[in-house]
């Protein structure tokens, strides 16, 4: 199963290394990890998307992360109401014949073209992981020359509808 874990960490040298190290040491499978500044000075927010076999393992991951001295807060937000976004830059082959077709795909996805050259265009798309996957599938036949994705970044919505919220700060 897929879990989205949100971390608040001290902005210190080596902190990312500690986290990736922990994932490889404990044999956890990461899909993506995105890092950036947070609302607090000196602290960063990291969003990890991981695949685990069962609930027990995902609980173990949160606990192991919690043990890290540079990590201030760990929340498994998978089962919360969240906003989750990923950004992808995709360079697609295009010529005057296919260009219009590609534009018509872009529109419903609210993607945009941010660079055009003789034989390719660069598309920028943001959205949830699944939306980007769907778009990539559609655009593939035209020939993807390069792609860069940021991985998911996420946090809980302002209002939580359901109460199946999970906290792992044990007892």
């Amino acid at each position, binding site marked *: 199963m897929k879990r989205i874990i949100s971390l608040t960490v001290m902005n210190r040298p080596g902190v990312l290394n500690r986290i990736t190290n922990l994932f490889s040491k404990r044999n956890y499978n990461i899909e993506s990890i995105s890092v950036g500044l947070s609302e607090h000075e000196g602290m960063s927010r990291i969003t990890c998307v991981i695949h685990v076999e069962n609930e027990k393992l995902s609980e*173990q991951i949160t606990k192991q992360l*919690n043990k890290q*001295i540079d990590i201030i807060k760990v929340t498994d937000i998978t089962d919360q109401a969240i906003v989750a976004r990923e950004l992808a830059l995709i360079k697609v082959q295009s010529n005057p014949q296919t260009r219009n077709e590609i534009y018509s795909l872009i529109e419903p996805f609210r993607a945009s073209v941010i660079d055009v050259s003789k034989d390719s265009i660069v598309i920028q798309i943001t959205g949830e992981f699944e939306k980007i996957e769907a778009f990539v599938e559609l655009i593939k036949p035209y020939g993807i020359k390069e792609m860069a994705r940021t991985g998911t970044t996420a946090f809980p919505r302002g209002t939580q509808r359901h109460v199946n919220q999970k906290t792992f700060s044990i*007892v």
Partner: protein
Amino acid sequence: MVREAALTEMKTDTLTGADLLISALEKEKVEVIFGYPGGAVLPIYDKIYDSKFLHILPRHEQGGIHAAEGYARISGKPGVVIATSGPGATNIVTGLADAMMDSLPIVAFTGQVATSVIGSDAFQEADILGITTPITKYNFQIRKLEDIPRVIKEAFYIASSGRPGPVLIDFPKDIASSLTKQPEEQEMNLPGYQPTVKPNFLQIRKLAEAVSRARKPVILAGAGVLHAKASHELLQYAEQQQIPVIHTLLGLGGFPANHPLFLGLAGMHGCYTANMGLSECDLLINIGARFDDRLTGNLDHFAPKAMVAHVDIDPAEIGKNVPTLIPIVADAKAALTALLTQTDSPPDQKDWLKQLQEWQEKHPYHYDEKSETLKPQQVMEMLFSKTKGEAIVATDVGQHQMWAAQYYRFNQADRWVTSGGLGTMGFGLPASIGAQLAEPGACVIAVVGDAGFQMSTQELAVIQELNLPIKIAIFNNQSLGMVRQWQEFFYESRFSHSKIPVQPSFVKLAEAYDIKGYTITNAEEAHEILDEVLHNREPVLLDFRVDAEENVYPMIAPGKGLHEMVGVKE
């Protein structure tokens, strides 16, 4: 005039980074340092020259950190290590991993090349932070002079609080030698580190109720009891509720072995009663043990009938290997103290105690006592009885380690030093040095195999130099005994590289270090020589020529459950 001079002194740069390091160590009340100099730590060593610490020079950095581990285990205080950059730093890696596995507080300083050349593959540069991140509780690199006092305070705090562990501080050479003035006091800044010590009341209630309903309860006590200095509370609680106690390898001594409620050591080479106690119990109270695989055997068969409660200061250990119904995140002492105040009626476990008693009588450890050859178990029994069970025993890794755990019956806490989690050969001899330094008056026995001893022989020099009265007992079976045993059991006795036909004379080797040595080939000699040397306050090396074919029993084969022991006395 004087005042003015003092003022200018304070304002000008008169202190080096190394000075700040020394005064921070003094503040932490460090008494002993295990260190080995080299280029990158020369500025530090120049200050150590005038300091009051007892500085021990091991003959290999690995020996230094194992000695620090022995010191930490017995004294309860962090063991302090210094190594130079590059090879000095990589030589302590095994010890850091060992201390991490066995939760021992260590503060290790490594020299580092100057900040201006870090990352350039400079002479004796190693990325020791990168190397040690997975095997330390935390590590630092000093970047600014003014951070030194705070970082060292944090390092000692992290190493010794919560679940203890090793902390490394990487110290670039230029920072150790550049000048500064007395920096302003900085508070510790560890918002992400708040170990839970006090137990949750509701969980304590749950456990107390479960205990009172139990018919077949047992306590499994691990080294968490020793780290928390909770053996007194453990004894009180076990007696109050009449619950039998089982120990893990590292927990030995937490509960007196001569107590009627003590069942013994559990695990791969544990005794019948302890392993069956775990297999048959209906309530398993784990206090400060981590359900290591050498203890549990195959998890599918582990404590199949039990409701599991687990007290641990590290929440990540709870539920990691064994599903746990009652999790209690707390220090063992705080949890036991809380349990002692509960007023539920004790469990009705008379039949259970009777059953355990029967097992104890029927299936004790056993060996051929009539054998002509000297049996290792027999030697261990002698060491035990001739020291009245009061010695500090530091072991290496292998068969002799298991026999020590089985036959040396500890009645007190903090008499047992062994490498459990990592199983590091070469640990025993240097660890005994640290233990002796922690308790200069104690009788310390280093129990080692002939192979593991040769991984640390060079440390005899430290014993000689300081005239440490350590009794080095080599269980000489001319083989890598434990490996030989596994090959006998699981590889059709194809003894691939597990026999050592050619050995040095250990007695002559001892003599080279001015240490008395004896070769002992039979029980009579053993009695005679032990009576003569055990109470002398000088080092001695005893080369016991023990039966080379002897195996450790009982044994649980890998993949088997605890109830599937072989070699039990019938």
